[in-house]
Each structure stands twice: as C-alpha cells, then as structure tokens.
C-alpha cells in the first residue's frame, strides 16, 4: 500500500442549493482513518453527521474536497462501502435469507451456488439470526431487523462498514445486545467501521476514536478523542472505570458546553406556535 491511511477525507465540504442560494452544510472536514479502526461520529442533530457518512458512501457528492479509499477516489455508491441504515431498510417482500442473498449475489460473481448459500448462512449466523432466516421483516422485531441489516452489509465484505445510527430506533436492552454483537464481529473480522451515533455511552464503548462535530451551518470536525481502553471491553466493568468516565465526560463537555444548541425552550415554543399558525392558514 502506497498510502499510509485506509480511508482519507480531505477538505470535504458540501453546499445544498436552496431558493436563497447555496447553503453550506459542511466545510473543511479532514479525517484519516486506519484499517480496522472503529470511528464514531457524534454531534447534535442537524450537524451534518449523516451527510459525512453519505459522502463516504457515495450517495452524496462533495462540493469541495474528496474521499479516497484504498488509493481510489470515491465517486459513486458501491458494496465496498456497505451502509447499515437507521431504519434497517430491508426489502419488506424478501425473507431475511433472501435479503442477505440479494447482496451476496450482487457482490460475489465467482462463487458457486453452494458457496453463496454458505456465505449467506454464515453472515446470518454472525449476527445470531440463524433461527429466523425464513421470516419476513414484518414478522421479526426491530432489533432482529437491524441484525439482518448488519448481516447484509457484512456479506458484501466491505472495505469500510458505514453505520447511520444503527441502534437509534431500538430500546435500551436490545441496543446493548446489538452493541455487544458489533464488538464481537469487529474483534473477529477487523472491519473498518464508521458509525454515526447520538449516544455518548455507545460512542465511548465501541470506538477507537470519537469524532465530535460542531453545529451547522458550515459544520466541521470540532475535536477528535482517542479512546484507549483495552479490548475486549465489558460494559459492566467499564461502568466504574475512571478512564471510561473521563472519556464520557469529555464528550459530554464538548456536546453540552462547547457546542450547546443555542435554541432555548422558549424560542422553540414560539417557533412551533408559528408553525401551527402556518398550518391553520394553509388549511383555511
């Protein structure tokens, strides 16, 4: 490898066109990610975390700067940058098995039929879903759907696994289970992972580095925090670990002091009042 870094974002910025002229959502995002690293992007909603992820995925095109993965510039979406979406986004008319199979068929042209079947089953096993391979998404719980979504992404054998708030829609217990699964899989396979999260504990528990983003517009990377906790990490043991709590504190300080959302409750109320007025006017 001629490049030192696996995934490189250089001076990435994006403008969205609006009727009032271009809106600068992101600017000067620089990030170098090593192979096998687990990175979390954290920030308030609307700060452009998802936009960063979508640019890496190729779903959005950066207005300025660019992304390089394994010495190749990212221009379009592709399976080497698999995405786990927040709302699982499984195809509702396909069973868990068929959902993963679709990804496998698309990414493994050389495999025989038996090899493909083994690979589908292997990935469903990784996320502990072997018992429900023939279930439709509507027949399984939210956590299970997300597991299948992760299996589908892993089955593409991505160079980078991108996860957009993968556990955001789940209850706390299910989320903890899935976080443990992700840690296991990451330890086994050593994937490079970029994950978006709102959850400070989740970020500290899972990441090698936490990338904290400033508020938009013109959002960028505020601070990067290295998490030097030994792996495997155990959530119970870490609860009393002073270092863990220090990291937590750092992230919380960044989010709630340095980058506090300026919008006060009163202002929010006023805004929603205006909004409701607007709606009534529309109805009339």
């Amino acid at each position, binding site marked *: 490898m001629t490049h030192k870094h696996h995934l490189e974002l250089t001076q990435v910025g994006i403008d969205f066109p609006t009727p009032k002229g271009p809106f600068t959502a992101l600017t000067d995002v620089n990030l170098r990610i090593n192979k096998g690293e687990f990175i979390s992007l954290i920030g308030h909603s609307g700060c452009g975390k998802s936009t960063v992820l979508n640019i890496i995925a190729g779903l959005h095109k950066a207005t300025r700067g660019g992304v390089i993965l394994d010495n190749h510039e990212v221009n379009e979406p592709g399976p080497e940058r698999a995405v786990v979406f927040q709302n699982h986004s499984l195809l509702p008319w396909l069973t868990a098995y068929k959902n993963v199979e679709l990804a496998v068929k698309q990414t493994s042209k050389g495999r025989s039929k038996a090899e493909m079947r083994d690979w589908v089953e292997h990935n469903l096993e990784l996320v502990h879903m072997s018992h429900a391979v023939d279930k439709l998404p*509507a027949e399984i719980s939210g956590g299970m759907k997300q597991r299948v979504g992760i299996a589908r992404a892993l089955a593409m054998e991505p160079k980078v696994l991108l996860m957009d708030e993968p556990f955001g829609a789940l209850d706390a217990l299910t989320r903890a289970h899935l976080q443990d699964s992700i840690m296991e899989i990451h330890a086994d396979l050593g994937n490079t992972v970029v994950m978006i999260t709102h959850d400070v504990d989740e970020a500290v528990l899972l990441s090698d580095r936490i990338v904290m983003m400033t508020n938009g517009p013109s959002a960028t990377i505020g601070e990067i925090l290295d998490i030097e906790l030994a792996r495997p990490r155990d959530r119970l043991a870490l609860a009393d670990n002073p270092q863990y709590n220090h990291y937590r504190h750092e992230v919380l300080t960044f989010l709630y002091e340095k980058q506090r959302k300026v919008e006060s409750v009163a202002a929010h109320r006023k805004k929603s009042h205006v909004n409701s007025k607007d709606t009534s006017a529309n109805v009339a």
Partner: protein
Amino acid sequence: MTRAQTASFILTPVKSVNVSMVSSWLRSAALPLLGILIFLGLWAVLAKNIDTSLGKFPGPSDVFTQAQVLIDEHGAQRSKADAFYERQELRNAARVAKDPSYSPTIRAFTGAPTFFDQIWTSLYTVTVGFLIASVIAVPLGILCGLSKASYAAINPLIQLLKPVSPLAWLPLVTMVVSAVYVSEDPMFSKSFITSAVTVSLCCLWPTLINTAVGVSSIDSDLLNVSKVLRLGPFSHVMKIVMPSSIPMIFTGLRLSLGIGWMVLIAAEMLAQNPGLGKFVWDEFQNGSSESLARIMVAVLTIGLIGFALDRLMLSLQKQVSWDKGAVLR
C-alpha cells in the same frame, strides 16, 4: 350471593357474546339485505307510475321474468345449434359413404347470438382491451416514475388525453381500423377491434398515472440500498421498483378495468360489436313491450359483472402483494 345474583353473574357474559354475534350478523348480512329490499320496494312503486311509449316502466318482477326468458332463449338456441350440427354430421357421413373421395365442409351455426353469447363477447373484448392498455401503461408508468425527464415529457399528453370520452375516440378508431385492418380472411371482426382499441385508449390512464406515482414514491432508503448494491437497471426495476409499487399499480389496474367495462358498453353500442352494448341498443331499436325489462336485465348484469371483475382484480392483488397485513378493499 343470592341465587338471582349468581344467575346474572353467569348470564351476563353469555348475553354479551350473543349481542356481539347478532350485531356482526346484522352488519354483514341483514343490513345489506335490508338496503336491497328497500331499493326493490321503491323501484316497484316508482316503476308503476312511469308510463313510456313502450308501456309501463318494468318493475322487479317484469325484469325477473325477462331474465328467465333470456335464459330459456339461450337454452333453445343451444339445442337448435346442437340439432343443426347433428344434421350436418349425418348428412356429411351419408355423402362420404356414397362417395369416399368427398371431403365434407363443416358450416358454422349462424343463429342469432343469445344474451349469454353477448356477455361472453363483452368479457372477451374488455379483457383484450384492458390487456393491451396494461401492457403499454405499466412499463410507461415505471419509466415516468423513474425518470423526471420522461415524466415531464409525457405528463402534458396524459393530462390532455385522459379526460377524452370514448365516444369522441370511436369515430376515429373506426375509420383507422377500417383503413388499416384489411384482410381477406380477418381473424377478428372490425367491430371487435374497434371496441377493444377504444377500451384500451380509455383505460390506459389510471394505470399509467398510478404506476408513475407508485414508482416515484418508493422509500428513499430502498433506493439507496439499490445504489449501494450497484443493481443494474433491470434488476433495480425487478427487485426494488416492481415489488414496492405493486399496490399502486394494482390500484391503477382496478380503476382501469372499471373504466374499461363502462367504456365497452358505449363502444359496443356504436361499433355494433355483438356484446352487451349491442344487446341494449338492439332492444332499444326493437321497441317491443318487453324491451325495457330486457334492457334492465342487461343493466343489472353489467353491474354484477363489473363488481365481479373488481373482486377478481382484488383477489389477484392479494395474491401478488407481499404485504399480507394491508387492508385491501
């Protein structure tokens, strides 16, 4: 606890079960029946008070009588046809026995089509027209839903042609079919083609519009999945687009078939395609004292068949739809 209390304690739940059963029975069977009875009553009373040049307007009983007459006529015509073919066969056999080199010609029975033959012709015609329209409208709708440019190009034409009445199309279609479909031994009669094409022209639009809307409103997450997987255009349509938009496509198809069936009757009247439309027209021209009752039989038949076609599409939709939990009505 006194005995009365115990009794009421036991009885109450039983009673409530009975009440709910009765009310569900009421809703599912008794109320529709009541509605029909009231309708028949009003019809009978009103019909008596309407005098036309062909006698009194037919009430329910006249219509029922004519329905039976039509069934009998069908039976009679069938036995005539059977007798005709039997005679023909005997005659041919006799001639072949006399002269083995003779190859008999089989002539078709040329009796007038019965009411049931006409129903069959109508169903056949509407099916052909509907299928032609669907084969054009679904792919075109998918194209419009996928590409904003093609939607922008086609949309004005859709809006312009959608409200056009079948009666306006019919003279044009008739002339074009007469000019283009020229054949020594035509496989289909011109009246059939004219009617089917007119049906097609009118039932293109609901399918086209609903398919386009269904395709353009696919969940953006699923579109992103397709992009990440780098699905080719064909698998994108087959694996993502078609299954997602099946409900909307079927909504369009059901609307189209309903419109097609309505249009067909008008088209058959004017094109003289031997279906239910022609039956109504002929009875109207015939002007006997039974004509109005016979037309009324046709009206009810048209309604029943329209309803049955819609149910048929609905059950087809349930078959192909992946979301078995969705309420379809």
